[in-house]
């Protein structure tokens, strides 16, 4: 059975992909720093403080999260992994997007010319419902279908 959620479109697009879920804030620097430094072929989450996603492959995934946390370089690190082709395909926020993530996805879109589809304000229920490994379909108008 699938469930449908509706959020606000920050950067729109259509996509079907696999979810990676974190219920605590995503620390972009801690999660992606190692892969970016090594210019790795896959972005493996290196944030040891986030047990839920530590060690998980984030490359091309749909990250479901409340918000991002940590260093103000976070947005720039997101740009870096996107440029390397190992960034997430989409970011789905249960809350209002924070300034670090907003800058990251927008700068990536404008300066790296790669889109990380971004929807925010999907609500707490979304984050409670979605599980890592599930297939998610995102539509241009901000509809998110968790299958």
């Amino acid at each position, binding site marked *: 059975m699938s469930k449908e959620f509706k959020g606000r479109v*920050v950067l729109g697009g259509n996509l079907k992909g696999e979810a990676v879920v974190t219920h605590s804030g995503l620390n972009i620097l801690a999660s992606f*720093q190692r892969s*970016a*430094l090594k210019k790795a072929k896959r972005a493996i989450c290196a944030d040891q403080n986030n047990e839920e996603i530590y060690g998980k492959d984030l490359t091309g995934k749909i990250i479901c999260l409340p918000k991002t946390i940590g*260093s*103000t*370089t*976070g*947005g*720039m*690190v997101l*740009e*870096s992994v996107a*440029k390397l082709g190992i960034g997430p395909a989409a970011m789905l926020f249960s809350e209002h*997007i924070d*300034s*670090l993530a*907003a*800058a*990251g996805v*927008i*700068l*990536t*879109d*404008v*300066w*790296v010319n790669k889109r990380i589809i971004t929807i925010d304000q999907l609500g707490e229920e979304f984050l409670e419902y979605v599980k890592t490994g599930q297939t998610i379909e995102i539509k241009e108008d901000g509809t998110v279908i968790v299958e």
Partner: protein
Amino acid sequence: MKYKMELTQEEREILEGKHGETLQKVMKSVVLYGETFGARRLVNLDGPVHLVTSFGIPILEPVFDMMDELIRNGLETEKKFTVDPRPLDYENVKANLIQKFVFKIMYGKQKEYEEQLKAVGLKDDKAFTCACYLPEVGNIPKKGDVLAWAESSAVVYANSVLGARTNRNSGIIELLSGIIGKTPEFGLLTDEGRMATWLIEVKTSRLPNAQVLGSAIGMKVVEDVPYIVGLDRFLGEGISDDTSDYLKDMGAASASNGAVGLYHVENITPEAVEKGRELLKEGYKTYVIDDAEIDRIIKSYPVMWKNENAKPRLCFIGCPHLSLNQLYDWTDKISRELQKKGQSKVKIRTILSAPPDVIEKFKKDNRAYERLMSTGTKLTYICPLMYMNNPICSKQPVITNSNKLRTYTTSRFYLDDEILEKIVKGY
């Protein structure tokens, strides 16, 4: 592309690419960022920007590419800007071979990046500090000035102590805002966004440690605006040098232990002096801080050292950077404590960190500088946080009086008196 924001003719033309592709990208980034937060228009900046990204860390490759593109197209900020501290100073903050190897990788692009900063509008070679608003540095906004800053400790100081108006911007957005000379109007730029939703009642028996008070407030209100009462009993009314130092450290702790971008202090900060409790929004929440709460907060800090009983190897004082007043004060405190114990040098490597302009002025007072140097204490301009944030340095048992440094690194927090005792005794 259709934008929701009300834009001027010139802004629309820039977005259409009539002033070149790069300026179009600059404008588009700022407008999209503003729209995400519901901004209705862009407003002119009254003062220079202050950048948070001061380090040439190779993973920020897209930033270096963007800087190159800005430079190629002759774009720079309208006003000369300041930037956060440099990460390294081997003369005063020694590093062993392994640490130097790590730093070489981490900050491998430092020289090139500093050249890029100069080309896009950096004020001068000494403009590297998180406390750009200090008189010696000179990036001092006036009350009501609209800014686009990103360094959290500088943002909260500019908003609260100086009464200027800036959001807690992300890195790079502040630079791009400086280039177009405009910032999106939302949040802390609006009267509504500057209203307090928390009343903080300070009921302690004496002036609480600024770093702990800020930490308590930050952890409680997170990103909301607090209105603080009860501090004027200890600090007096208005803002003296000592009060601005206190508020600087309190604000930095509230911004790092939470995400506070603005606080009001009754009878002290400019907007609170002007409007008083009218700044409190209907339905505000209350948080009482007494002696027991201060003790509870201190005890709640986790110790991140592998061995809790390890002998401290390094002590950092000055995160955020020390003011000239604080530099004199620490020189005096360290010298007196050593004298009291009949010692001449500190037993733990102790590093005071201050803006290059403050250090330059302090050094001109030969007697005070020699007095500090004779204690064995080092004086630097680096960002202790950037020194600590790597797997090698983070393994060292480092002590600090900074709640910001404690939050972002493995360093251990102590109150000023405890720090003094430890650096003199050596344990």
